[in-house]
């Protein structure tokens, strides 16, 4: 028992000192620690409930994605079939029910068509090599093309990867500090933006798909047909709220001249004469060339600028636009023009994202919560410390030293793990202070018992630690089981609580058992007490 080698003492003290030191940077103002440069200064992040800010859970509309995919396939197939020699005529194209179907005008070309379709839809999905599309022939001349589940899964995965990137770029454009953007599950993105003053702007920004297209206006369409929803072949009808013709729709060619993918820059600006907010844009080389060619061929005609399948303006091409840049004019305010510019710069969202959960905490409530949490923690420590000294005397003091060190060790470990301290985390903290002394209570009560049985001081202390250690281990394992379950299954606040609880369980066993044992042994060895007050 009294055998406690010097190296052990030093390693315990050293380890605890390092862990405590890790907690220090979190208490210092940031402008100090920033100057430390590469010197490690781990900090504990404050959760949104303490720092204020927004938590958003976004979910992709995968049904919408499936439709877009089928429609893109339709466009590709119609184009390819037309290009084939001899041309394969198809008609009665439908994209209803998440599948694409069309008739072959000449049933004898079934084999040629199938060959063509296989090459268009070819390519395996991922490593499994499964086909992305399922092709069937019904009634000898009708083709039905369905996305396979593997192909759909891959498409969703790809779309979510892109969407996460786009969301990240848009949030970065807001210039907030340390946002968290994580993909969650198959079709969700979790966004946490601390310290945000105006969460509304964030949501408005994330809600925009920003699918920008330039298409020629189909001037052969008659307004009375448009109102009825009848579009000329090869054209589609899109809403156009600001149509000077007085009807809220317009017909445009299906094929796009240029799309937003070919933009390299977009900036909010003001039109020089009217001083109205506009968005300036620049195409890449390819897009610029195509735009130049089309505007040369179609001078005097109208083209439509389409954002998220809505026409925002349909200007006349007065002169060919050769430089690869231009501007969009619409019913913008300076803010909405800026948001559009950001969305255009960050690229279009491949899927529509919906906010399915939101928690926003105002900065004042956060600050109040921190103050309250700190005060509660201090009072809790003081109460527990006083109570322990009153009950166990010298042994209580040792337990207290362990508790106070444990508080800093938990903070240090939390900083090391780049953990986030949340309000429930503070509760976990206070609770850990309570449970950490439980180990010491177990030990000290055991020592009391052994003394009552008439054992010597040294024997009692030794038995106290030995017998109690087993119980402490068992008790903490069960406690940890519930902590781990919280960590795995819990979301948000529950997780924050579980992290602190689990760290607390690990560190408290060390401080409450090993560290206090060291203190007690040092004291016993030095003074050789014949009797102890406990």
């Amino acid at each position, binding site marked *: 028992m009294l055998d406690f080698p010097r190296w052990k003492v030093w390693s315990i003290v050293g380890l605890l000192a390092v862990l405590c030191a890790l907690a220090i940077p979190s208490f210092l103002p940031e402008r100090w620690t920033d100057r430390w440069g590469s010197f490690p200064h781990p900090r504990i992040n404050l959760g949104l*409930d303490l720092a204020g800010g927004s938590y958003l*859970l976004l979910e992709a509309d995968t049904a919408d994605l499936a439709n877009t995919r089928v429609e893109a396939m339709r466009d590709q197939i119609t184009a390819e079939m037309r290009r084939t020699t001899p041309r394969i005529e198809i008609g009665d194209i439908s994209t209803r029910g998440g599948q694409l179907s069309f008739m072959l005008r000449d049933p004898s070309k079934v084999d040629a068509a199938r060959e063509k379709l296989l090459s268009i839809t070819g390519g395996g999905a991922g490593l499994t090599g499964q086909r992305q599309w399922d092709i069937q022939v019904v009634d000898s001349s009708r083709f039905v093309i369905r996305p396979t589940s593997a192909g759909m899964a891959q498409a969703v995965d790809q779309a979510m990867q892109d969407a996460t990137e786009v969301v990240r770029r848009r949030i970065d454009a807001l210039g907030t500090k340390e946002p968290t953007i994580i993909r969650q599950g198959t079709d969700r993105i979790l966004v946490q933006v601390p310290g945000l003053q105006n969460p*509304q702007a964030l*949501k408005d920004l994330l*809600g925009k798909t920003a699918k920008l297209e330039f298409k020629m206006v189909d001037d052969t369409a008659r307004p009375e047909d448009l109102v009825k929803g009848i579009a000329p072949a090869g054209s589609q009808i899109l809403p156009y709220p600001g149509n000077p013709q007085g009807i809220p729709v317009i017909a445009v060619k299906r094929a796009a001249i240029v799309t937003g993918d070919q933009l390299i820059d977009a900036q909010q600006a003001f039109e020089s004469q009217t001083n109205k907010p506009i968005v300036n844009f620049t195409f890449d080389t390819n897009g610029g060339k195509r735009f130049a060619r089309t505007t040369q061929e179609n001078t005097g005609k109208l083209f439509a600028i389409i954002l998220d399948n809505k026409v925002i303006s349909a200007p006349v091409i007065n002169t060919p636009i050769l430089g690869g840049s231009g501007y969009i004019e619409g019913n913008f305010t300076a803010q909405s023009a800026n948001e559009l510019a950001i969305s255009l710069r960050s690229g279009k969202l491949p899927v529509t994202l919906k*906010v*399915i*959960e*939101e928690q926003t*905490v*105002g900065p*004042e*409530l956060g600050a*109040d*919560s921190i103050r*309250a949490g700190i005060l*509660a*923690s201090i009072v*809790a420590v003081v*109460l*527990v410390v006083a*109570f322990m000294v009153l*009950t*166990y*005397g010298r042994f209580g003091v040792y337990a207290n030293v362990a508790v106070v060190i444990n508080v800093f060790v938990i903070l240090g470990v939390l900083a090391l793990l780049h953990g986030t301290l949340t*309000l429930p985390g*503070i*509760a976990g903290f*206070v*609770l850990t202070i*309570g*449970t950490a*002394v*439980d180990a010491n*209570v*177990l030990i000290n009560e055991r020592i*009391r018992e052994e003394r*009552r049985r008439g054992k010597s001081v040294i024997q009692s202390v030794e038995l106290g630690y030995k*017998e109690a250690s*087993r*119980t402490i281990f*068992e*008790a*903490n394992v*069960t*406690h940890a*089981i*519930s*902590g781990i*379950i*919280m960590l795995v*299954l*819990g*979301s*948000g*606040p*529950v997780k924050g609580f*579980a992290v602190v*609880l689990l760290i607390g369980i690990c560190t408290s066993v060390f401080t409450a058992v090993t560290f206090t044992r060291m203190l007690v042994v040092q004291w016993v060895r030095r003074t050789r007490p014949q009797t102890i007050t*406990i």
Partner: protein
Amino acid sequence: MRLLKLVPDNTNIDFVRLRGLAFALTLLLSLLAVGITFARGLNLGVDFVGGLMIEEQFASPPSLDKVRQVVDAQGVGDAALQLVGDQRTVSIRLPAQNGDEGATNAVVRKVEGALGRAFPGATFSRYATVSGKVSGELIRNGLLAVVLAVLGIGLFAIFRFEWQFGVSTVVAIVHDLLMTVGFFALTRFDFDLNIVAAVLTIIGYSINDKIVIDDRIRENMRRYRKMDMREIINLSVNETLPRTVMTSVTILLALIALLLLGGHVLRGFTAAMILGIVVGTYSSIYVSSSLLISLGLRAEPTRAKPGTLDRAEQVGPRER
């Protein structure tokens, strides 16, 4: 210096004899808790039912009727109002808005705007919107977490001790859970995600308490092989009584500090914890250990072969 002793030395309370009474009381309280929960229902938070919650802080304590008038005038559905914390903060619960999130955003803006105009100096302190889909998942995960925790801990107890320990522990924990849920039905505190964390902690703590006693029972079973099981259990509960009370009081001290000073957001959480500690301590002392006798725990391990019993030393699988 004379040290404080909450429990006098060498207590000898016959807890086992009290078990009839304790079981009856436990059963009665549990039934009451279930009854209250079914009769009144839980005041489920936004996390679990979906919808939106706006917490608005006013410059001075507002009249709830006036706040209700302002909110009702917006035509956004039935609002449930509650004063929280310092009497200047009102939590406004609104049903989920049908339609997309745009509708929800609009409602938040509308209500805040109207309150800001009607009560100068009012600011929002937080708001939360949860769609029905997510709330369903949160309920499922919450329930799953609780069930898994109970099962996991029960299995651990069976694995480390005898099966009787596992069963008695699980019974006692179910009792603690019922009491906590009943408490929330009675007080109408918001039952939200934080409370699930509280419930899981109560499970963890209560288990902790029981394991300590179980551990002592096992130790005493080895030490006093000839002793009657009743005596062993009484002795073990009495021996660990100082620790049980000490630890509970320490944790209660910490929690009371949190309840009084920790701010209103955590109030329900802390209240649940305090109740859980009290109930858990009760069930550790009166329910779980006495239940071991009713479950037929014997002093000699039942798997020992006849004829080996009277030998002092036994060779067999180590129990720890």
